[in-house]
């Protein structure tokens, strides 16, 4: 542009040019470039690795409560995801960190006693059938980590619903972590308990909210420490790496609906229990807010969040399963193309939303 801009710089030396202007502009020369003109420092790798970093408290909490098995499983799931991305994906996509997030999030949704090979298969499935089959990052329909978990739940229902209690020492394995693939391991090696949601659903036993909030309960690796998840989510929301409308609308819908149900039927669990138990926090903050599989418009984000919250309450209170966050998010992922279509913004200066020409 320098050749064209040469004559225009006579009024140069405007005293207080904003810092974000380019050097040429600040020197008073007219610079002609195509948009965008104002560039932020954010890039895909930066966002993705920030999300990974924000998961650190959750990972620490998971290893604190479930011992060394948690670390092994998280590493296994991440390895499965990253290796699949490396072998089958387009070159150079490992650096953007999206495969690492998928693997880590999948690992956080597993019970601590799952054998290592199941975690690796789950990570590989997530990336292969959740993401690469659609053409890679940004083109998938379903959240890859949750699709991987739904696959594991359908393929290995027993190990996916066995919840170990906290091991006695940190170095004790929570289950038969190193079982050989497709071999039945020593199932009795670990003590198993029930999740707070399972206790509530099948035995109508509640759990104190304080214990739920710090994670001193049974459950998946990452779903127990609600406070750690909220802290990470707040940091990401402050950096605007996730749309705050989605977690807020999910949690608000769950709270309101469960309070309403409690007024009608006092024996149902109240809003605090519903909010802090199970995978709701992890799902609302980290899974539902996946930039690829959530709606782009603000109105769409509200509809999406309310839909997830309503489905969570529906499945938890009236469904056959104790926990429904994963299915609620997957179902609303499937609805996203429809939500986007319905909330298409009006093009400025026209009367009605413009139909895309096919």
């Amino acid at each position, binding site marked *: 542009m320098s050749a064209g801009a040469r004559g225009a710089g006579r009024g140069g030396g405007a005293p207080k040019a904003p810092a974000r202007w380019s050097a040429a502009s600040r020197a008073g020369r007219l610079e002609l470039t195509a948009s965008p003109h104002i560039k932020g420092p954010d890039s895909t790798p930066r966002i993705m690795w920030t999300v990974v970093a924000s998961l650190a408290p959750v990972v620490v909490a998971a290893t604190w409560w479930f011992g060394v098995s948690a670390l092994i499983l998280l590493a296994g799931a991440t390895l499965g995801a990253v290796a699949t991305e490396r072998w089958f994906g387009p070159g150079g996509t490992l650096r953007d960190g999206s495969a690492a997030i998928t693997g880590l999030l999948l690992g956080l949704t597993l019970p601590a006693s799952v054998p290592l090979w199941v975690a690796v298969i789950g990570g590989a499935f997530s990336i292969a059938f959740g993401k*690469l*089959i659609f053409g890679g990052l940004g083109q998938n329909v*379903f959240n890859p980590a949750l699709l991987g978990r739904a696959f594991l739940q*359908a393929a290995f229902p027993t190990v996916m619903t066995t919840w170990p209690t906290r091991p006695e020492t940190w170095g004790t394995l929570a289950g038969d972590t190193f079982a050989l693939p497709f071999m039945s391991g020593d199932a009795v090696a670990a003590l198993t308990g029930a999740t707070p949601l399972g206790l509530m659903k099948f035995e109508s036993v509640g759990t104190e909210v304080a214990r739920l909030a710090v994670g001193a309960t049974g459950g998946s690796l990452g779903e127990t420490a609600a406070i750690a998840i909220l802290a990470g989510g707040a940091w990401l929301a402050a950096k605007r790496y996730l749309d705050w409308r989605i977690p807020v609308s999910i949690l608000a819908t769950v709270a309101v609906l469960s309070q309403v149900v409690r007024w009608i039927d006092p024996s149902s669990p109240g809003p605090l229990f519903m909010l802090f138990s199970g995978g709701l926090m992890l799902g609302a903050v980290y899974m539902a807010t996946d930039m690829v599989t959530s709606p782009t418009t603000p109105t769409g984000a509200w509809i999406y969040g309310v839909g997830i919250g309503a489905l969570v309450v529906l499945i938890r209170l009236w*469904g*056959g*399963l104790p926990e429904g966050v994963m*299915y609620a998010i997957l*179902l609303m992922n499937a609805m996203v*193309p429809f939500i986007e279509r319905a909330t298409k913004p009006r093009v400025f200066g026209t009367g009605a939303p413009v139909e895309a020409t096919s």
Partner: protein
Amino acid sequence: MTDLLWILVSAMLVNNFTLVLFLGLCPFLGVSARVSTALRMGLANIFVLTITSVTASFLNAFILPFAPYLRLISFIVVIASLVQITEMAIKKLSPTLFRELGIFLPLITTNCAILGLAIFQTNRGYGFVEGLFFALGAGLGLTLALVLMASIRETTELADVPSMARGMGLVLILAGSLSLAFMGFAGLFTV
């Protein structure tokens, strides 16, 4: 009333004909490329399913008690003729819709969802009103599956799908993923 609602919700979500029972896969895979077509296919299905349910109720009440061996054949013949009549009516009333659906209207005839509905309804002993709600639920469930699938397929048209999965391969994987998601409705309202 609660029972009727339960029948409706069960047929629509918990035992969704397409995504849980895997009935009626032909229209699900064949006519789900565009949302507008999928919606019309779904409506046509609701229409045919409702007629099927009414017919099955009448056959069960008036003919089959005297000739139980006629069950399968009478269902098939009556449904097939009804769909032919539907096709003729649509051809006359809405040539556009007829052109859009094309080959798929005759496909509804041989659709296992239709025969499945008649047989399920008979085996479960549903009466006339229960059968209507069952048919409506099944039709709404089919429409829901079709429209969801079509909207997803329209989105993935722009995706950079690897050549091995392009076309029907991706559609089948999407159908499997949707089916996984619908597992969440298992056992709804039964506990």
